């Protein structure tokens, strides 16, 4: 018996080491590209000349690229646009989504099934980008910051998730509140929302990431450069062709600028995400219960 346990023990240890090794590789594969981008963004031109290109760890670093982006480019402006879309957009998203989800979660709502069907149908079929563009255009929203907020104000899926959550709240709560003469708006604000902070937060996070990464609606509806969000500006910087290398020592290499813009645009997500990971994971599972 004892011998068999020993074999079991070593086998287990080897197994754990292999698992840990492969997992380390996966973790590294996720991290390495970002670290390399960071390294490029800090590489001074003298280093590029010395090494004949970019290498993993430069011997000296410079923040020139960041200084340039933050003082001589549209990046700060675009940061402002993106921040506005993210904050105002997410608040609107949450307000309208919960205003929809609450009545839909109450069984006594007349026409409830019809409403739900109409929402689900939008998940299956859409008019397509051109007809949507025409609607946005006819509302006079082209080249306005609202064109990046309103056309996608409610994600059908989030309404369904929130509605399912509200359905789990006990009916007696609402009845006693109604008995006390509370109006539905009051019930939503004072009872439903405080009881559903985690789900609201999770859905809000997904909306917020969507806004931060806003690209599609911007290229559809916005041509005014002042209104370009961060992702559009970063893509512009990325597809710039290399500038000719004159008076080399003082220049910031195009690649360095490009990668600095990538770091700036991803920084908020990279910094904030680890603290909120739990909520995101929960949201993924909330979604998969339904879908």
């Amino acid at each position: 018996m004892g011998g068999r346990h020993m074999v079991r023990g070593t086998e287990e240890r080897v197994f754990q080491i292999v698992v840990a090794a492969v997992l380390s590789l996966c973790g590294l594969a996720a991290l390495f590209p970002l670290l390399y981008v960071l390294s490029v963004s800090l590489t001074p031109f003298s280093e590029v000349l010395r090494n004949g290109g970019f290498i993993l760890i430069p011997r000296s670093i410079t923040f020139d690229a960041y200084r340039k982006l933050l003082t001589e480019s549209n990046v700060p402006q675009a940061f402002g646009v993106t921040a506005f879309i993210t904050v105002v957009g997410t608040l609107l998203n949450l307000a309208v989504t919960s205003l929809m989800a609450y009545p839909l979660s109450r069984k006594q709502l007349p026409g409830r099934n019809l409403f739900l069907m109409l929402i689900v149908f939008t998940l299956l079929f859409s008019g397509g980008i051109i007809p949507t563009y025409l609607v946005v255009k006819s509302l006079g929203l082209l080249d306005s910051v609202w064109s990046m907020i309103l056309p996608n104000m409610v994600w059908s899926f989030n309404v369904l998730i929130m509605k399912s959550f509200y359905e789990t709240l006990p009916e007696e709560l609402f009845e006693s509140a109604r008995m006390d003469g509370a109006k539905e708006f009051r019930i939503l604000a004072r009872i439903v929302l405080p009881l559903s902070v985690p789900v609201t937060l999770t859905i809000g996070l997904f909306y917020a990431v969507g806004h931060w990464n806003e690209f599609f609606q911007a290229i559809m509806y916005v041509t005014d450069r002042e209104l370009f969000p961060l992702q559009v500006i970063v893509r512009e910087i990325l597809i710039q062709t290399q500038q000719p290398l004159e008076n080399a020592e003082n220049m910031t290499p195009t690649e360095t600028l490009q990668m600095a813009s990538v770091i700036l645009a991803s920084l908020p997500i990279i910094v904030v995400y680890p603290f909120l990971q739990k909520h995101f994971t929960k949201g993924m599972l909330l979604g998969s219960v339904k879908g």
Partner: protein
Amino acid sequence: MLLPGALYFIVFRYFPMYGVVIAFKDYSFNDGILGSYWADPWNKHFLTFIHSPYFGQLLTNTLLISVYKLLFGMLPPILMALLLNECRIRWFKSLVQTLTYMPHFLSWVIIYGIVLALLSQNSGLVNHWIEEAGGQSIPFLTSTTYFRSLLVSSEIWQNLGWGAIIYLAAMAGIDPTLYEAARVDGASRLRMIWHITLPGIRSVIVMLLILRLGHMLDAGFEQIYIMYNIQVYPVADILDTWVFRTGLQQLNFSLASAVGLFKAAIGLVLVLVSNRIAKRWGEGIW
């Protein structure tokens, strides 16, 4: 209370469904949706598209990219979930989870930047290494040979950890007494994975596969639009990117709407069929 939401759905979701009638008209800016004349014959724009040289190419590209993503993208998250599930060192497990979930939240613009840093022909790290080793640099981003692999692998990178979450949840639901019984019988870890864990998540795997088949025509507009360039159009141009260019850059609204409608109609059938199959398989999505 429903008013703001209902208004939103009517204006931004259902008006466009009505607006899609321009697929059957010769849309002109001056006349608007109602005033434009009906196309003659009614399916003129559909015929134009089906007989155009793009038709075969766009459909092939869309389906091939989707199939490749499905084929090569399915397994890595499952393996990832198996590894995470077997890992007994808790802090290490959550560290790896944090790291590998993160790419999911990065936009395609950011990922394109990363791809450039690693693979661009002039200054990419990989080509730097190839040249140092005495080789010829490879145009990963502009060559029709590599572009689809690039799309597939960048999506796998983005989704490796995140895709594992749902399998991990399914694994957590497996009855632990099964493992105990197997352990008493002297089964090795690998045997337990093969005979208990994998069968335990089989239904989830099949379900996800079926649901993804319903979205075969969505090959990933944003990713492709951000990463492609004119050199790789022959292998990378999909229905969505073509609709975008034809409609919003060449202003051929009716033709673009027709192609969009063509795609949405087939997509609707695919989703309905795949949901029906999924429902028969287990629990449906609604």
